[in-house]
């Protein structure tokens, strides 16, 4: 901080907070930490949590970030915000005054989003965030320090658990129901009593087959981590590590599911607030320049800041008589629904969005945002955001007689990358300590990939 003092920043912050409150933003208590460039890389590596548990993948992430930055391939983020209460944000020491001001305003956008968006409200406990990460870290470190366990064995479980870390329940905030409750629900559904309003019932009710209640799981289960930790042949500490990885994913799910909204919302607010600040001429010019950098389109790719900002801006203009509307949207939606509902043809057109497919070795444009194509473009985008980019894998059955775990990939037209599927399956087999099978479709044919106890993987027709 060369040409400005902390005091100055605090004064700017005071004005920003005032404007933010006037606009109706409602956020957690905010804490800013001002850190160096090296610290920033570190924070970025450890998802903002310096007290994160150790694993080599973070060492790799660090090297990668540093290298990319060294060659100017990617800028360091101006800021980093943690979904916690109080909300913690890091500002980089070397940034210019304007960047700090812009970042602070941006942070209040995120902070408001964390506090109000439904996914965060039901899916995370912001007041426990810091404690949770510290607790996870100390548990993992204890296992490493335990002479009966040690670094290598902890690493092996972490490697395996990380490989399926996104395969937990996708429904945010949903409580797991016990098997007995599930049976009750299923029975009720099948033996539904005659409704009070028989006219509302469909004329012919299809007889639903009763599932086999002895089967484990009763219904296909997408929470691989939970299932393995519940039924796997694991020791107590192994189970615990799997749960740690699972809890961390659950914490990040809302962020994964709202990347476009969250960044769009924060960008929308830094833009709105800074326009209200009556910045002096020189700062204002820098503000416009930086803002345009943040929300510029990435040709050949998707910039979540750009799309999110554009949609919120469009909503504000459309509902100028209902200023509450955008607040409602930020509360209720997630990226997928946000795009499906509010990405209009005009916006698609303005942003020149197109859809491409791979033909042979080439990427060919399949749809553009004209009258006939824009819906397809929108839907493809909606299907690929957030968890949509991760294949849905469910556990169909645990065949107990030979301890085989049968997985199924819910095929939606997108094939699995086989080389990755093979290796991931080996990791699942590591955790499961037994044979693992995965059913999927390759070139529209049903296939089953089998990983046996010796970690030999073969593919066969199903």
């Amino acid at each position, binding site marked *: 901080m060369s040409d400005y003092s*902390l005091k100055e*920043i605090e004064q700017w*912050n005071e004005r920003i*907070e005032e404007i933010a409150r006037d606009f109706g933003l409602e956020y957690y208590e*905010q*804490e*800013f930490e*001002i850190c*160096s460039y*090296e*610290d920033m*890389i*570190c924070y970025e590596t*450890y998802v903002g949590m*310096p007290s994160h548990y*150790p*694993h*080599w*993948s*973070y*060492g*790799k992430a*660090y090297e990668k970030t540093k290298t990319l930055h060294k060659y100017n391939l990617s800028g360091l983020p101006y800021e980093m915000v943690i979904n916690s209460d109080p909300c913690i944000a890091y500002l980089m020491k070397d940034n210019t005054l304007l960047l700090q001001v812009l970042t602070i305003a941006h942070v209040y956008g995120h902070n408001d989003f964390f506090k109000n968006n439904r996914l965060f409200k039901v899916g995370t406990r912001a007041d426990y965030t810091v404690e949770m990460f510290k607790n996870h870290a100390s548990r993992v470190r204890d296992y490493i320090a335990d002479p009966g366990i040690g670094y290598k064995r902890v690493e092996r479980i972490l490697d395996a658990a990380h*490989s*399926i870390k*996104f395969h937990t329940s996708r429904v945010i905030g949903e409580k797991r129901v016990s098997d007995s409750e599930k049976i009750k629900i299923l029975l009720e559904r099948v033996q539904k009593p005659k409704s009070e309003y028989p006219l509302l019932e469909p004329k012919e009710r299809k007889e639903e087959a009763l599932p086999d209640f002895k089967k484990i799981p009763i219904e296909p289960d997408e929470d691989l981590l939970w299932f393995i930790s519940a039924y796997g042949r694991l020791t107590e500490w192994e189970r615990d590590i799997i749960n740690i990885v699972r809890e961390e994913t659950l914490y990040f799910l809302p962020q*994964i599911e709202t*990347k476009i909204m969250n960044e769009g919302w924060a960008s929308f607010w830094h833009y709105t607030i800074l326009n209200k600040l009556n910045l002096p001429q020189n700062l204002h010019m820098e503000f416009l320049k930086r803002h345009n950098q943040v929300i510029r389109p990435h*040709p*050949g790719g*998707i910039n979540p800041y750009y799309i999110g900002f554009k949609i919120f801006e469009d909503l504000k203009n459309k509902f100028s008589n209902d200023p509450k509307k955008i607040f409602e949207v930020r509360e209720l939606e997630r990226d997928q629904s946000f795009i499906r509902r509010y990405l209009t043809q005009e916006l698609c057109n303005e942003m*020149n*969005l*197109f*859809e*491409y*497919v*791979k033909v042979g070795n*080439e*990427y*060919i*444009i*399949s*749809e*553009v945002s004209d009258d006939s194509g824009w819906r397809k*473009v929108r839907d*493809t985008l909606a299907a*690929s*955001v957030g968890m949509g*980019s*991760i*294949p849905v894998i469910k556990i169909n059955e645990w065949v107990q007689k030979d301890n085989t775990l049968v997985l199924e990939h819910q095929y939606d037209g*997108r*094939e*699995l*990358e*086989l080389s*990755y599927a093979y*290796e*991931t399956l080996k990791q699942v087999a590591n955790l499961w300590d037994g044979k693992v099978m995965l059913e999927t479709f390759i070139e529209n044919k049903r296939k089953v990939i089998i990983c046996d106890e010796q970690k030999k993987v073969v593919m066969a027709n199903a």
Partner: protein
Amino acid sequence: MAIFKEYGSGGKDRSAEDRRRHRELVEESIKKNIGNIIAEESIIGQSKDKKIKIPIRSIKEYHFVYGKNKSGTASGDGDEKRGDKVGEDKMGKKGQGDGKAGNEEGEEIYETEITIEELVKYLFDDLNLPDIDKKKMAELESIKSLKKIGYQRKGIPPRLAKRRSAVEKIKRKQAYLRSMKELEDDDIQQDEAAEEVVDGIDLPDKQEFRRFPFMEDDLRYHRVRVDHKRDFNAVVICIMDVSGSMDQTKKYLARSFYFLLYQFIRLKYANVEVAFVAHTTTAKEVNENEFFHRGESGGTYISSGYEKALEIIEQRYNPVNWNIYAFHCSDGDNWTEDNKRAVEYAQKLCGVCNLFGYGEIVPGYYSSSSTIKYEFQKHVKTKNFAIVTMTKKEDVLPGLKKLLEKEGE
């Protein structure tokens, strides 16, 4: 009102531990690919410290990810039309949206710089051959020398240190004289009256004074360390069949092998020389470049190469002073009439070399069972002879290992 804190990590680097582990895993992955890496390098003339760049695949974190047939969206400049080509394979990485989801499928490749020495170290770590080094060193002690490193009181007569013993005696004599003088002074003061008597008694002592002989205690012997002087010179003689049937693929394998052998030998000797012998039906000594790049047509007399090697050894590398490693690469396509001579010369080579190896290179599945290999197996029984068969790049390392095991015997 927000709180502002200036954060200082105090120079602590939280990521150090994880980076170290990552680096370790990368090194392991280098070791796994070492055969491929090392086969690329030029055989000699590389200084140990020269850094070479090698691409390594990064340590992958596997997840279930979508493959190549998925569609994607992206923003453009508005001129896009259906059917336009927007990119080739590389673009797969883009347009996937959230990077956090960790679904990059693109091959991540690092480039790491390491020195050849490190590379070789990894390589021989990987071969798990520590014992061979020791054995080899033991065998190499050809000359013993004795080095005097001090003195000791006990010893054998030939190691008597005469000068030192004399010095010891003088020291003792001086000490004796001083103590005698002190004694005398005391006596004078205390006992002047008895002077006459003392003089009379002392007389025999004074006689002995003049003689003062060596005593057992004066003798010193040299302390000696047995020094194992090693032979520091080694020569690698690369003999290669360059006849028409030896194509580039075969030469490439041979080259990899020579490189590895050279590196290994260089680990153990201070001074390693390399000689190249190329042969068809006749042999000549060539330089490295010619050796690998100039092809010749014609038939094959393996014996000619051996004869030339023996000639070189005789002229320049006396086996008394040089450790000789000879290795011959051929596709085994020797002319039958030469087989007998070849075996004969091979035996001779075994007589002068530390190690003589024959590498038969048969790329692909087609392999004519060569008669010369059979002849060698049958007739050359010496312990320092090894036969290695290579069909592909991956065979080079196991081949070398086999050869070195032979050396360790």
